[in-house]
Protein backbone atom coordinates (compact mmCIF):
# COMPACT_ATOMS: atom_id res chain seq x y z
CA UNK A 1 0.00 0.00 0.00
CA UNK A 2 1.23 3.48 -0.83
CA UNK A 3 0.98 6.10 1.85
CA UNK A 4 -0.02 9.56 0.68
CA UNK A 5 2.96 11.94 0.35
CA UNK A 6 1.29 14.42 2.69
CA UNK A 7 1.03 11.83 5.44
CA UNK A 8 4.62 10.66 4.98
CA UNK A 9 5.68 14.25 5.36
CA UNK A 10 3.69 14.64 8.55
CA UNK A 11 5.05 11.43 10.06
CA UNK A 12 8.59 12.46 9.16
CA UNK A 13 8.13 15.87 10.73
CA UNK A 14 6.72 14.48 13.95
CA UNK A 15 9.42 11.79 14.01
CA UNK A 16 12.30 14.21 13.54
CA UNK A 17 10.86 16.62 16.06
CA UNK A 18 10.58 13.84 18.60
CA UNK A 19 14.15 12.77 17.96
CA UNK A 20 15.46 16.31 18.37
CA UNK A 21 13.51 16.80 21.59
CA UNK A 22 14.73 13.47 22.90
CA UNK A 23 18.38 14.42 22.29
CA UNK A 24 18.04 17.84 23.83
CA UNK A 25 16.02 16.32 26.64
CA UNK A 26 18.82 13.96 27.64
CA UNK A 27 21.30 16.83 27.64
CA UNK A 28 19.03 19.03 29.72
CA UNK A 29 18.38 16.21 32.19
CA UNK A 30 22.09 15.55 32.73
CA UNK A 31 22.88 19.20 33.24
CA UNK A 32 19.90 19.69 35.54
CA UNK A 33 20.91 16.76 37.75
CA UNK A 34 24.50 17.95 37.96
CA UNK A 35 23.33 21.48 38.64
CA UNK A 36 20.85 20.53 41.37
CA UNK A 37 23.24 18.15 43.12
CA UNK A 38 26.33 20.31 42.77
CA UNK A 39 25.16 23.89 42.95
CA UNK A 40 24.63 24.08 46.70
CA UNK A 41 28.23 23.00 47.35
CA UNK A 42 29.84 25.61 45.20
CA UNK A 43 31.24 28.73 46.79
CA UNK A 44 34.39 30.79 46.53
CA UNK A 45 36.23 28.51 48.93
CA UNK A 46 35.42 25.50 46.75
CA UNK A 47 36.95 27.21 43.73
CA UNK A 48 39.98 28.84 45.35
CA UNK A 49 40.98 26.48 48.18
CA UNK A 50 43.01 23.29 48.15
CA UNK A 51 41.34 20.00 48.95
CA UNK A 52 41.65 18.55 52.42
CA UNK A 53 41.22 15.01 53.62
CA UNK A 54 41.46 13.48 50.12
CA UNK A 55 38.89 15.93 48.80
CA UNK A 56 36.25 15.30 51.40
CA UNK A 57 36.58 18.94 52.45
CA UNK A 58 38.10 22.06 51.00
CA UNK A 59 38.17 23.09 47.36
CA UNK A 60 39.44 22.00 44.00
CA UNK A 61 41.78 24.82 43.01
CA UNK A 62 44.74 22.53 42.14
CA UNK A 63 42.44 20.44 39.89
CA UNK A 64 41.18 23.53 38.11
CA UNK A 65 44.76 24.64 37.49
CA UNK A 66 45.78 21.11 36.52
CA UNK A 67 42.97 20.97 33.96
CA UNK A 68 43.77 24.37 32.48
CA UNK A 69 47.49 23.63 32.28
CA UNK A 70 47.05 20.21 30.72
CA UNK A 71 44.57 21.43 28.12
CA UNK A 72 46.44 24.62 27.31
CA UNK A 73 49.91 23.12 26.92
CA UNK A 74 48.57 20.14 24.96
CA UNK A 75 46.82 22.49 22.54
CA UNK A 76 49.94 24.65 22.25
CA UNK A 77 51.91 21.51 21.32
CA UNK A 78 49.33 19.83 19.11
CA UNK A 79 47.98 22.77 17.10
CA UNK A 80 51.16 23.76 15.23
CA UNK A 81 52.03 20.11 14.66
CA UNK A 82 48.56 19.10 13.49
CA UNK A 83 47.96 22.23 11.45
CA UNK A 84 51.37 21.90 9.86
CA UNK A 85 50.61 18.32 8.86
CA UNK A 86 47.24 19.36 7.43
CA UNK A 87 48.83 22.19 5.44
CA UNK A 88 51.51 19.84 4.16
CA UNK A 89 48.92 17.26 3.08
CA UNK A 90 46.67 19.75 1.34
CA UNK A 91 48.92 22.51 -0.01
CA UNK A 92 52.45 21.25 -0.33
CA UNK A 93 52.12 17.77 -1.80
CA UNK A 94 50.19 16.09 -4.52
CA UNK A 95 48.05 13.04 -3.80
CA UNK A 96 50.36 10.03 -3.76
CA UNK A 97 50.88 6.73 -2.01
CA UNK A 98 52.82 8.66 0.62
CA UNK A 99 49.96 11.03 1.48
CA UNK A 100 47.54 8.10 1.45
CA UNK A 101 49.69 6.31 4.01
CA UNK A 102 49.84 9.38 6.23
CA UNK A 103 46.08 9.85 5.93
CA UNK A 104 45.43 6.20 6.69
CA UNK A 105 47.70 6.47 9.72
CA UNK A 106 45.89 9.55 10.96
CA UNK A 107 42.48 7.91 10.55
CA UNK A 108 43.65 4.81 12.39
CA UNK A 109 45.04 6.91 15.22
CA UNK A 110 41.73 8.72 15.51
CA UNK A 111 39.96 5.43 16.16
CA UNK A 112 42.23 4.16 18.92
CA UNK A 113 40.64 4.21 22.42
CA UNK A 114 42.21 6.76 24.74
CA UNK A 115 43.26 4.11 27.25
CA UNK A 116 45.72 2.78 24.68
CA UNK A 117 47.29 6.23 24.43
CA UNK A 118 47.41 6.27 28.21
CA UNK A 119 49.14 2.92 28.29
CA UNK A 120 51.64 4.04 25.67
CA UNK A 121 52.30 7.29 27.55
CA UNK A 122 52.82 5.32 30.76
CA UNK A 123 55.25 2.85 29.20
CA UNK A 124 57.12 5.36 27.05
CA UNK A 125 57.15 8.72 28.82
CA UNK A 126 56.67 7.70 32.45
CA UNK A 127 58.79 4.52 32.54
CA UNK A 128 61.14 4.43 29.54
CA UNK A 129 62.05 8.14 29.50
CA UNK A 130 61.97 8.15 33.32
CA UNK A 131 59.80 11.25 33.37
CA UNK A 132 57.53 9.82 36.03
CA UNK A 133 53.91 10.87 36.56
CA UNK A 134 53.96 14.50 35.66
CA UNK A 135 52.23 17.22 33.74
CA UNK A 136 54.67 16.86 30.84
CA UNK A 137 54.00 13.11 30.45
CA UNK A 138 50.30 13.94 30.44
CA UNK A 139 50.74 16.77 27.97
CA UNK A 140 52.75 14.66 25.51
CA UNK A 141 50.26 11.81 25.72
CA UNK A 142 47.32 14.14 25.24
CA UNK A 143 49.12 15.81 22.33
CA UNK A 144 49.43 12.48 20.54
CA UNK A 145 45.84 11.64 21.39
CA UNK A 146 44.34 14.83 19.94
CA UNK A 147 46.64 15.16 16.91
CA UNK A 148 44.40 13.09 14.61
CA UNK A 149 41.39 15.24 15.46
CA UNK A 150 43.26 18.46 14.74
CA UNK A 151 44.80 17.13 11.53
CA UNK A 152 41.51 15.83 10.16
CA UNK A 153 39.37 18.84 11.02
CA UNK A 154 42.05 21.26 9.75
CA UNK A 155 42.47 19.28 6.56
CA UNK A 156 38.73 19.31 5.89
CA UNK A 157 38.57 23.03 6.62
CA UNK A 158 41.51 23.78 4.31
CA UNK A 159 40.11 21.61 1.54
CA UNK A 160 36.82 23.49 1.75
CA UNK A 161 38.52 26.78 0.81
CA UNK A 162 37.64 27.38 -2.87
CA UNK A 163 40.49 26.81 -5.31
CA UNK A 164 39.63 30.11 -6.98
CA UNK A 165 40.81 32.07 -3.96
CA UNK A 166 44.22 30.45 -4.21
CA UNK A 167 44.36 31.14 -7.94
CA UNK A 168 43.56 34.82 -7.37
CA UNK A 169 46.17 35.08 -4.67
CA UNK A 170 48.84 33.59 -6.94
CA UNK A 171 47.75 35.81 -9.81
CA UNK A 172 48.36 38.84 -7.59
CA UNK A 173 51.95 37.80 -7.12
CA UNK A 174 51.70 35.87 -3.87
CA UNK A 175 54.01 32.98 -3.08
CA UNK A 176 52.66 29.69 -1.82
CA UNK A 177 53.46 30.63 1.77
CA UNK A 178 51.72 34.00 1.43
CA UNK A 179 48.71 32.34 -0.15
CA UNK A 180 48.48 29.75 2.60
CA UNK A 181 48.86 32.19 5.48
CA UNK A 182 46.88 35.13 4.13
CA UNK A 183 44.06 33.46 2.22
CA UNK A 184 43.75 29.77 2.99
CA UNK A 185 44.19 29.82 6.76
CA UNK A 186 42.03 32.89 7.32
CA UNK A 187 39.21 31.28 5.35
CA UNK A 188 39.67 27.94 7.09
CA UNK A 189 39.97 29.46 10.58
CA UNK A 190 36.46 28.60 11.81
CA UNK A 191 36.91 24.94 10.86
CA UNK A 192 40.34 24.77 12.41
CA UNK A 193 39.03 26.36 15.58
CA UNK A 194 36.25 23.78 15.76
CA UNK A 195 38.91 21.06 15.72
CA UNK A 196 40.79 22.77 18.52
CA UNK A 197 37.59 23.05 20.57
CA UNK A 198 36.81 19.36 20.12
CA UNK A 199 40.34 18.57 21.21
CA UNK A 200 40.11 20.71 24.32
CA UNK A 201 36.90 18.87 25.14
CA UNK A 202 38.63 15.53 24.79
CA UNK A 203 41.56 16.51 27.03
CA UNK A 204 39.36 18.08 29.69
CA UNK A 205 37.07 15.05 29.76
CA UNK A 206 39.80 12.41 29.69
CA UNK A 207 40.41 10.36 32.83
CA UNK A 208 42.11 6.99 32.31
CA UNK A 209 44.93 8.21 30.06
CA UNK A 210 45.52 11.16 32.38
CA UNK A 211 45.76 9.02 35.52
CA UNK A 212 48.26 6.77 33.73
CA UNK A 213 50.55 9.62 32.74
CA UNK A 214 49.97 12.71 34.86
CA UNK A 215 49.09 10.82 38.00
CA UNK A 216 46.55 12.05 40.51
CA UNK A 217 48.42 14.19 43.00
CA UNK A 218 46.25 16.63 44.89
CA UNK A 219 48.99 19.24 45.12
CA UNK A 220 49.06 22.30 42.92
CA UNK A 221 51.46 21.62 40.02
CA UNK A 222 54.08 24.35 39.87
CA UNK A 223 56.20 22.97 37.03
CA UNK A 224 55.80 20.66 34.05
CA UNK A 225 57.58 17.95 36.06
CA UNK A 226 54.98 17.95 38.85
CA UNK A 227 52.20 15.45 39.07
CA UNK A 228 48.68 16.80 39.22
CA UNK A 229 45.03 16.00 38.86
CA UNK A 230 42.46 17.28 36.45
CA UNK A 231 38.86 17.97 37.40
CA UNK A 232 37.67 14.91 35.51
CA UNK A 233 40.14 12.71 37.40
CA UNK A 234 39.23 14.35 40.69
CA UNK A 235 35.56 13.77 40.00
CA UNK A 236 36.23 10.15 39.07
CA UNK A 237 38.23 9.42 42.21
CA UNK A 238 35.78 11.20 44.52
CA UNK A 239 32.87 9.24 43.11
CA UNK A 240 34.65 5.93 42.53
CA UNK A 241 36.09 5.71 46.01
CA UNK A 242 33.00 7.05 47.70
CA UNK A 243 34.88 9.99 49.20
CA UNK A 244 32.24 12.63 48.69
CA UNK A 245 29.42 12.61 46.16
CA UNK A 246 28.58 16.24 46.94
CA UNK A 247 32.07 17.39 46.07
CA UNK A 248 32.04 15.15 43.03
CA UNK A 249 28.89 16.79 41.65
CA UNK A 250 30.19 20.25 42.47
CA UNK A 251 33.39 19.42 40.55
CA UNK A 252 31.35 18.14 37.64
CA UNK A 253 29.35 21.33 37.58
CA UNK A 254 32.50 23.47 37.46
CA UNK A 255 33.78 21.20 34.67
CA UNK A 256 30.62 21.61 32.58
CA UNK A 257 30.62 25.32 33.28
CA UNK A 258 34.24 25.78 32.16
CA UNK A 259 33.66 23.83 28.93
CA UNK A 260 30.68 26.04 28.18
CA UNK A 261 32.80 29.11 28.89
CA UNK A 262 35.57 27.93 26.57
CA UNK A 263 33.01 27.30 23.83
CA UNK A 264 31.48 30.75 24.19
CA UNK A 265 34.94 32.32 24.09
CA UNK A 266 35.89 30.34 21.01
CA UNK A 267 32.70 31.31 19.17
CA UNK A 268 33.33 34.92 20.08
CA UNK A 269 36.84 34.77 18.59
CA UNK A 270 35.52 32.88 15.57
CA UNK A 271 32.90 35.55 14.90
CA UNK A 272 35.60 38.21 15.00
CA UNK A 273 37.63 36.30 12.42
CA UNK A 274 34.62 35.53 10.25
CA UNK A 275 33.39 39.10 10.22
CA UNK A 276 36.80 40.34 9.18
CA UNK A 277 37.26 37.78 6.40
CA UNK A 278 33.88 37.62 4.74
Amino acid at each position, binding site marked *: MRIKPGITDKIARIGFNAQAFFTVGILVTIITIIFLKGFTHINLEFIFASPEDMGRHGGIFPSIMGTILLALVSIVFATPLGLGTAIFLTEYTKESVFTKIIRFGVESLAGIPSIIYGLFGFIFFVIKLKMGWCLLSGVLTMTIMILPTIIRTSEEAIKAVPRNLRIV*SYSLGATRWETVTK*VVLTSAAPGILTGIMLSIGRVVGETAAVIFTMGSSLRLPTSLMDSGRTMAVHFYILAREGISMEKAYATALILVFSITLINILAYYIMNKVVS*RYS
Partner: protein
Amino acid sequence: MNVKIKVKDLKASFGTQQVLKGITVDVYKNMITGFMGPSGSGKSTIISIINRMIDFEDGFKISGCVSIDGGDITGICNSVELRKRVGTVFAVPIPLPRSIYENIIYGPRLNRINDKDELDNIVRESLKKAFLWDEVKDRLGTSALKLSGGQQQRLCLARTLALKPEIILLDEPCSGLDPISTAKIEEALSELKKDYTIILVSNNTKQIARISDYSAFFYMGEMVEYGPTEALFTNPKIKKTEDYISGKFG
Protein backbone atom coordinates in the same frame (compact mmCIF):
# COMPACT_ATOMS: atom_id res chain seq x y z
CA MET B 1 55.21 50.54 -32.54
CA ASN B 2 56.95 48.71 -29.77
CA VAL B 3 56.47 45.00 -29.36
CA LYS B 4 55.77 44.22 -25.71
CA ILE B 5 55.08 40.50 -25.82
CA LYS B 6 56.58 38.25 -28.45
CA VAL B 7 55.09 34.79 -28.81
CA LYS B 8 57.06 32.49 -31.07
CA ASP B 9 56.04 29.05 -32.25
CA LEU B 10 54.19 28.34 -29.03
CA LYS B 11 52.93 24.79 -28.71
CA ALA B 12 51.04 23.26 -25.84
CA SER B 13 49.54 19.86 -25.37
CA PHE B 14 47.39 18.40 -22.68
CA GLY B 15 47.78 14.64 -22.62
CA THR B 16 47.49 13.55 -26.24
CA GLN B 17 45.46 16.58 -27.22
CA GLN B 18 47.30 19.46 -28.86
CA VAL B 19 45.84 22.68 -27.52
CA LEU B 20 48.18 25.11 -29.26
CA LYS B 21 49.74 24.21 -32.59
CA GLY B 22 52.56 26.70 -33.01
CA ILE B 23 51.33 30.22 -32.35
CA THR B 24 53.43 33.22 -33.37
CA VAL B 25 52.14 36.66 -32.51
CA ASP B 26 53.48 40.08 -31.53
CA VAL B 27 51.51 42.06 -28.97
CA TYR B 28 52.14 45.79 -29.16
CA LYS B 29 52.71 48.12 -26.28
CA ASN B 30 49.90 50.45 -25.15
CA MET B 31 47.36 48.72 -27.33
CA ILE B 32 44.41 46.49 -26.66
CA THR B 33 44.89 43.23 -28.46
CA GLY B 34 41.78 41.11 -28.75
CA PHE B 35 42.00 37.32 -28.85
CA MET B 36 38.80 35.81 -30.16
CA GLY B 37 37.66 32.38 -31.19
CA PRO B 38 35.20 29.70 -30.25
CA SER B 39 35.74 27.82 -26.99
CA GLY B 40 38.52 25.28 -27.25
CA SER B 41 40.45 27.45 -29.68
CA GLY B 42 43.33 27.85 -27.25
CA LYS B 43 43.04 31.58 -26.60
CA SER B 44 42.81 31.23 -22.84
CA THR B 45 45.70 28.78 -22.80
CA ILE B 46 47.96 31.40 -24.35
CA ILE B 47 47.29 33.91 -21.63
CA SER B 48 47.72 31.36 -18.89
CA ILE B 49 51.16 30.71 -20.38
CA ILE B 50 51.93 34.43 -20.46
CA ASN B 51 51.14 34.83 -16.75
CA ARG B 52 52.43 31.35 -15.97
CA MET B 53 49.20 30.44 -14.16
CA ILE B 54 49.42 27.27 -16.22
CA ASP B 55 52.00 26.13 -13.65
CA PHE B 56 49.08 25.25 -11.39
CA GLU B 57 47.50 22.91 -13.92
CA ASP B 58 48.80 19.38 -14.18
CA GLY B 59 49.65 17.63 -17.38
CA PHE B 60 50.51 20.44 -19.77
CA LYS B 61 53.55 20.21 -22.05
CA ILE B 62 54.73 23.47 -23.49
CA SER B 63 57.34 24.35 -26.09
CA GLY B 64 58.22 27.52 -27.92
CA CYS B 65 59.04 30.94 -26.59
CA VAL B 66 57.20 33.80 -24.94
CA SER B 67 59.19 36.92 -24.18
CA ILE B 68 58.28 40.18 -22.52
CA ASP B 69 60.48 43.14 -23.44
CA GLY B 70 62.87 40.65 -24.95
CA GLY B 71 63.19 38.47 -21.85
CA ASP B 72 62.08 34.86 -22.14
CA ILE B 73 59.48 33.97 -19.52
CA THR B 74 58.81 30.33 -20.29
CA GLY B 75 61.97 29.09 -18.62
CA ILE B 76 62.23 31.35 -15.60
CA CYS B 77 61.83 29.93 -12.14
CA ASN B 78 60.55 33.03 -10.47
CA SER B 79 57.01 33.19 -11.76
CA VAL B 80 55.99 35.14 -8.65
CA GLU B 81 57.92 38.20 -9.84
CA LEU B 82 56.46 37.75 -13.32
CA ARG B 83 52.90 37.92 -11.99
CA LYS B 84 53.65 41.27 -10.42
CA ARG B 85 54.36 42.57 -13.93
CA VAL B 86 51.49 40.71 -15.59
CA GLY B 87 48.11 41.27 -13.96
CA THR B 88 45.16 39.02 -14.66
CA VAL B 89 41.40 39.46 -14.50
CA PHE B 90 39.47 36.21 -14.70
CA ALA B 91 36.14 35.39 -16.31
CA VAL B 92 34.34 35.07 -12.99
CA PRO B 93 34.92 37.89 -10.52
CA ILE B 94 36.65 36.39 -7.51
CA PRO B 95 36.83 38.87 -4.65
CA LEU B 96 38.83 37.71 -1.66
CA PRO B 97 36.59 37.29 1.38
CA ARG B 98 37.48 40.59 3.03
CA SER B 99 36.72 44.29 2.67
CA ILE B 100 36.93 46.28 -0.58
CA TYR B 101 39.94 48.16 0.77
CA GLU B 102 41.72 45.00 1.86
CA ASN B 103 41.11 43.39 -1.52
CA ILE B 104 42.92 46.20 -3.30
CA ILE B 105 45.87 46.39 -0.97
CA TYR B 106 46.43 42.63 -1.08
CA GLY B 107 48.98 42.94 -3.89
CA PRO B 108 50.74 46.11 -2.66
CA ARG B 109 51.06 44.58 0.82
CA LEU B 110 52.83 41.58 -0.72
CA ASN B 111 55.26 44.10 -2.18
CA ARG B 112 55.96 45.35 1.35
CA ILE B 113 54.08 48.62 0.97
CA ASN B 114 52.82 49.34 4.47
CA ASP B 115 52.55 53.12 4.57
CA LYS B 116 48.92 54.04 5.26
CA ASP B 117 48.88 57.17 3.07
CA GLU B 118 50.48 55.37 0.18
CA LEU B 119 48.01 52.48 0.45
CA ASP B 120 45.07 54.92 0.65
CA ASN B 121 46.40 56.56 -2.47
CA ILE B 122 46.74 53.27 -4.34
CA VAL B 123 43.20 52.27 -3.38
CA ARG B 124 41.78 55.60 -4.57
CA GLU B 125 43.72 55.66 -7.82
CA SER B 126 43.02 52.02 -8.70
CA LEU B 127 39.31 52.33 -8.01
CA LYS B 128 39.10 55.52 -10.05
CA LYS B 129 40.82 53.90 -13.01
CA ALA B 130 38.40 50.98 -12.82
CA PHE B 131 35.42 53.41 -12.73
CA LEU B 132 34.32 52.09 -9.36
CA TRP B 133 35.45 54.82 -6.96
CA ASP B 134 32.24 56.86 -6.95
CA GLU B 135 30.13 53.82 -6.17
CA VAL B 136 32.17 52.54 -3.23
CA LYS B 137 34.15 55.47 -1.81
CA ASP B 138 31.91 55.70 1.26
CA ARG B 139 32.03 52.00 2.11
CA LEU B 140 35.57 50.82 1.51
CA GLY B 141 35.39 48.87 4.77
CA THR B 142 32.44 46.70 3.77
CA SER B 143 32.85 43.20 2.46
CA ALA B 144 33.69 42.90 -1.23
CA LEU B 145 31.29 39.97 -1.40
CA LYS B 146 28.40 42.41 -0.91
CA LEU B 147 29.08 44.14 -4.25
CA SER B 148 27.10 43.28 -7.37
CA GLY B 149 28.67 41.06 -10.04
CA GLY B 150 29.60 44.02 -12.25
CA GLN B 151 31.08 45.91 -9.33
CA GLN B 152 33.01 42.85 -8.23
CA GLN B 153 34.57 42.52 -11.66
CA ARG B 154 35.62 46.17 -11.63
CA LEU B 155 37.01 45.58 -8.16
CA CYS B 156 39.06 42.72 -9.57
CA LEU B 157 40.31 45.06 -12.29
CA ALA B 158 41.18 47.68 -9.68
CA ARG B 159 42.95 45.04 -7.60
CA THR B 160 45.04 44.10 -10.61
CA LEU B 161 45.83 47.77 -11.32
CA ALA B 162 47.00 48.20 -7.73
CA LEU B 163 49.90 45.89 -8.57
CA LYS B 164 51.06 48.54 -11.05
CA PRO B 165 51.61 45.88 -13.70
CA GLU B 166 52.92 46.48 -17.22
CA ILE B 167 50.52 44.06 -18.85
CA ILE B 168 46.90 43.27 -18.08
CA LEU B 169 45.38 40.01 -19.26
CA LEU B 170 41.61 39.75 -19.25
CA ASP B 171 40.09 36.33 -19.76
CA GLU B 172 36.52 36.94 -20.91
CA PRO B 173 36.02 39.53 -18.18
CA CYS B 174 32.48 40.42 -19.23
CA SER B 175 31.08 36.97 -19.89
CA GLY B 176 28.83 37.07 -16.84
CA LEU B 177 28.00 40.78 -16.81
CA ASP B 178 25.06 42.89 -17.88
CA PRO B 179 25.49 45.39 -20.75
CA ILE B 180 25.90 48.41 -18.45
CA SER B 181 28.66 46.80 -16.40
CA THR B 182 30.26 45.63 -19.62
CA ALA B 183 30.22 49.17 -20.98
CA LYS B 184 31.90 50.44 -17.82
CA ILE B 185 34.66 47.86 -18.08
CA GLU B 186 35.18 48.67 -21.75
CA GLU B 187 35.34 52.37 -20.97
CA ALA B 188 37.93 51.68 -18.28
CA LEU B 189 40.02 49.53 -20.62
CA SER B 190 40.03 52.17 -23.35
CA GLU B 191 41.45 54.64 -20.83
CA LEU B 192 43.92 52.18 -19.40
CA LYS B 193 45.69 51.34 -22.63
CA LYS B 194 47.60 54.63 -22.35
CA ASP B 195 49.60 53.13 -19.51
CA TYR B 196 49.31 49.40 -20.02
CA THR B 197 49.51 46.71 -22.64
CA ILE B 198 46.24 44.85 -22.64
CA ILE B 199 45.23 41.47 -23.97
CA LEU B 200 41.50 40.89 -24.01
CA VAL B 201 40.26 37.37 -24.54
CA SER B 202 36.62 37.23 -25.54
CA ASN B 203 34.27 35.25 -27.67
CA ASN B 204 32.16 38.33 -28.04
CA THR B 205 33.32 39.54 -31.47
CA LYS B 206 31.41 42.81 -31.11
CA GLN B 207 33.33 43.64 -27.99
CA ILE B 208 36.64 42.94 -29.71
CA ALA B 209 35.57 45.11 -32.64
CA ARG B 210 34.55 47.94 -30.31
CA ILE B 211 37.63 48.34 -28.19
CA SER B 212 40.63 46.43 -29.47
CA ASP B 213 43.31 47.92 -31.71
CA TYR B 214 44.63 44.61 -32.94
CA SER B 215 42.80 41.35 -33.06
CA ALA B 216 43.62 37.75 -33.57
CA PHE B 217 41.27 34.96 -34.50
CA PHE B 218 42.01 31.52 -33.12
CA TYR B 219 40.53 28.25 -34.21
CA MET B 220 41.36 24.74 -32.97
CA GLY B 221 44.72 25.76 -31.52
CA GLU B 222 45.85 27.74 -34.51
CA MET B 223 45.94 31.44 -35.16
CA VAL B 224 43.94 31.91 -38.33
CA GLU B 225 44.37 35.63 -38.80
CA TYR B 226 45.95 38.58 -37.03
CA GLY B 227 46.01 42.25 -37.83
CA PRO B 228 44.65 45.72 -37.06
CA THR B 229 41.09 45.31 -35.84
CA GLU B 230 39.55 47.57 -38.45
CA ALA B 231 41.18 45.74 -41.35
CA LEU B 232 40.39 42.34 -39.90
CA PHE B 233 36.73 43.11 -39.38
CA THR B 234 36.07 45.02 -42.61
CA ASN B 235 38.22 42.98 -44.90
CA PRO B 236 39.17 39.58 -43.50
CA LYS B 237 41.62 37.73 -45.70
CA ILE B 238 40.56 34.26 -44.71
CA LYS B 239 37.12 32.80 -45.21
CA LYS B 240 37.03 31.22 -41.74
CA THR B 241 37.58 34.58 -40.06
CA GLU B 242 34.82 36.11 -42.10
CA ASP B 243 32.45 33.30 -41.17
CA TYR B 244 33.27 33.71 -37.49
CA ILE B 245 32.92 37.47 -37.28
CA SER B 246 29.73 37.42 -39.30
CA GLY B 247 28.32 34.90 -36.85
CA LYS B 248 28.10 31.90 -39.15
CA PHE B 249 29.66 29.67 -36.49
CA GLY B 250 31.25 29.90 -33.07
